[in-house]
């Protein structure tokens, strides 16, 4: 019965989404939309409540291990730890799509409840656009992937969750990414509404900005966490593989980063109007492309996709409909978007245009590198594109982007001089030069690109703090701090990537009990290998004693785990985090001679990669808080004027 209630809630949400579309469209056309707004706000809220109810029902079915539900039987097991029962609800195709549309509905309700700056007509059109997106995905759930489908007869127990996915970090990874993906749907709806209502200007940009910021923060956190998960769970010691699933989250982030910067130009200087609209469409398009790549099964095999094309084709049709529709609208209306303020060639705006162009080029390259193998495969050519392709294309452009990131904040709006910029950049450029010479000599003149990245990271760190120079720190607005912290985060993250690439050391050997290996400055001794038990796995665990010089030794416990449901082996890396890097250990197989394979890395400053990601997200958060506080204050002064 409960599963049917969930399905009913989903259908009711669909009905309210249709009502929201119709009423929103009517309000947008009405002479006085304000009359219809309260009703529209309530409908958006009720739609979100029903979507959330359906999602909570699904979680309940997983928590109670109701095996008469197909999805639960296929993806859960009664013996699973509670956290993974809950996370299991969205650790699969149908559940994750239900989560997707729930977040979408909640975002729509958020716009309906909190948006006070837009004129009533544009707000109505925004809610109608948001409902249109939701209807497509409700239809997808209802017709192509019903999460509440029954299984008759019910099995005694389920098939379990892939052990690789049984990790607390991964449990919260999809929701974080989806908050980012779907936050961009709001920017998309705003852009569509602004085009429809011919209402493109600073007010619309100010309304859109917090949503873009929020989405971008979640995407940043999601990508950072996903990278760390791959790093410690897969046991290869790598932190970015350029695989299509990773690119699926990187592409919306690149577009959102560009949008974040262009929306600032529109909000503060009233420039880049058409460009910002275009980016808002592109950013959400990338979210949908990402969802399609990960959720259509096309990555596993074009053939699997061809054999069961319903889902993939449905998603593809939705994609074509929304992206095509938005682009057609953009093409038809872009002529009516009047020209905003202009600026000189050397100015903050020009630097932001450069930022946008370079981000777009990187996005284009990543998109081609991700889709090309799929297209080729459809044509019958088997190929794969790996890290070398992206390192040859994206990395050099990224270096230009870093230079722009350093220079941009040091430029004045509208008009500045090259001389002034150069004088402000003297110190960062000098730091970059010194760092490059130093590290280039230190690494024996190898790998100039990685050394260049490291040197640029130092220069960018210096340049990002520069805007705070000679400012009254107490009176500096939060968004400025946000910018400084985020740009600093990019420098920190780049430094980590370059340091790991340049200075990591690896050892691989078969070791007998009591023997030791040297890796970097460490002596690693295999003390013993012993069996151990977890809640739903058993394991062989190696006890490693790690010592640096004469310092206090510490232990690392890498494992080979065995899960019974479904029967799988996984290897659990053990990582020790020190102030200047990480010792990373993986236990391999044992052999007849009583030796065990050990793979060890010393990775100096590798942690900076994720610390930088955290700083970037924190910068976004500071900015967002600053914007919200200020919007509140503005709203209050408006009310006081009216009283």
């Amino acid at each position, binding site marked *: 019965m409960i599963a049917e209630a969930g399905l009913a809630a989903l259908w009711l949400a669909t009905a309210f989404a249709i009502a929201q579309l119709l009423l929103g469209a009517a309000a947008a056309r009405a002479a006085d939309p304000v009359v219809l707004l309260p009703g529209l706000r309530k409908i958006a809220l009720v739609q979100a409540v029903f979507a959330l109810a359906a999602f909570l029902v699904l979680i309940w079915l997983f928590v109670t291990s109701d095996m008469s539900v197909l999805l639960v039987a296929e993806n859960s097991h009664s013996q699973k730890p509670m956290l993974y029962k809950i996370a299991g609800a969205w650790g699969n195709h149908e559940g994750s799509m239900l989560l997707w549309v729930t977040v979408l509905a909640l975002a729509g309700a958020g716009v309906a409840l909190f948006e006070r700056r837009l004129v009533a007509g544009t707000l109505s059109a925004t809610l109608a656009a948001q409902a249109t997106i939701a209807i497509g995905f409700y239809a997808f759930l209802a017709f192509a992937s019903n999460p509440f489908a029954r299984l008759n007869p019910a099995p005694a127990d389920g098939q379990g969750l892939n052990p690789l996915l049984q990790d607390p970090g991964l449990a919260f990874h999809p929701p974080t990414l989806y908050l980012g993906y779907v936050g961009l749907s709001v920017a998309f709806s705003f852009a569509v509404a602004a085009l429809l209502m011919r209402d493109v200007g600073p007010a619309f940009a100010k309304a859109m900005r917090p949503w873009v910021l929020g989405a971008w923060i979640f995407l940043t956190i999601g990508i950072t966490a996903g990278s760390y998960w791959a790093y410690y769970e897969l046991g290869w010691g790598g932190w970015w593989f350029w695989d299509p699933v990773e690119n699926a989250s990187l592409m919306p982030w690149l577009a959102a980063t560009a949008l974040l910067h262009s929306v600032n130009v529109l909000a503060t200087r009233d420039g880049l109007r058409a460009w910002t609209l275009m980016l808002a469409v592109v950013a959400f398009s990338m979210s949908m492309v990402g969802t399609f790549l990960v959720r259509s099964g096309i990555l596993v095999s074009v053939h699997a996709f061809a054999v069961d094309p319903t889902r993939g084709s449905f998603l593809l049709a939705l994609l074509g409909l929304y992206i095509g529709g938005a682009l057609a609208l953009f093409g038809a209306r872009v002529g009516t978007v009047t020209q905003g303020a*202009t*600026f000189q060639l050397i100015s903050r705006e020009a630097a932001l245009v450069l930022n946008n162009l370079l981000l777009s*080029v990187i996005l284009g*390259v990543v998109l*081609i590198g991700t889709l090309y193998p799929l297209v080729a495969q459809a044509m019958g050519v088997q*190929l794969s594109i790996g890290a070398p392709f992206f390192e040859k294309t994206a990395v050099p452009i990224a270096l230009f982007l870093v230079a722009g990131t350093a220079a941009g904040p040091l430029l004045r709006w509208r008009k500045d001089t090259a001389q002034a910029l150069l004088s402000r950049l003297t110190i960062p450029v000098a730091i970059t030069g010194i760092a490059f010479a130093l590290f280039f000599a230190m690494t024996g003149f190898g790998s100039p690109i990685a050394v260049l990245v490291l040197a640029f990271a130092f220069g960018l760190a210096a340049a990002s703090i520069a805007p705070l120079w000679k400012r009254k720190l107490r009176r500096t607005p939060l968004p400025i701090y946000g910018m400084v912290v985020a740009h600093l985060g990019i420098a920190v993250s780049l430094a980590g990537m370059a340091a790991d690439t340049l200075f990591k050391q690896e050892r691989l050997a*078969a070791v007998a009990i009591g023997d030791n290996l040297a890796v970097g400055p460490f002596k690693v001794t295999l003390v013993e290998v012993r069996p151990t038990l977890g809640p739903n796995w058993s394991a062989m665990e190696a006890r490693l004693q790690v010592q640096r010089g004469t310092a206090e030794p510490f232990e690392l416990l890498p494992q080979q785990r065995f899960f019974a449901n479904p029967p799988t082996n996984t290897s659990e890396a053990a990582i020790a985090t020190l102030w200047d890097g990480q010792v990373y250990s993986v236990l391999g197989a044992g052999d007849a001679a009583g030796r065990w*394979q050990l793979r060890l890395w010393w990775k100096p400053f590798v942690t900076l990669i994720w610390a930088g990601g955290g700083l970037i997200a924190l910068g976004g958060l500071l900015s967002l808080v600053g914007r919200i506080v200020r919007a509140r204050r503005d709203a209050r002064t408006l009310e006081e004027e009216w009283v």
Partner: protein
Amino acid sequence: MKAKHQRLTLALLAVAAIVGAALLALSALKDQAAFFYAPGDVAGKPLPLGKAVRLGGMVQTGSVVRARDGVSIGFRVTDGKAVVPVRFRGVTPDLFREGSGVVAEGQFQPDGSFTADNLLAKHDERYMPPQMAGKMHKSESLEQ
């Protein structure tokens, strides 16, 4: 700069950026795309030497040999048509087994063997390397 001109300049810049991205990507694709081979694809043909490629197939049952250093292995990959011997130094993935699918990344050697830098085994019970599935389906669809 006049407003009209500015917009035109920006539009042209955007187009130039997109074209630039495409050109850059295509030139890199030429030498960076790792093509996928099954043993049957290279049997009796000139080998793709000196570039990174992927070799996929089944790990032939009974073919895995562990070297004395404890970290190098040799095994044979087959697709039912031909067999290629593979050498690999490293920790094998959790799902690497005889009789299971594998994708090896690396280079062909002049003697027809394959040196792998990396092995990808199937992810889970339901996973099959995409290229493998393609090859298998091809033979199935021919039968149909």
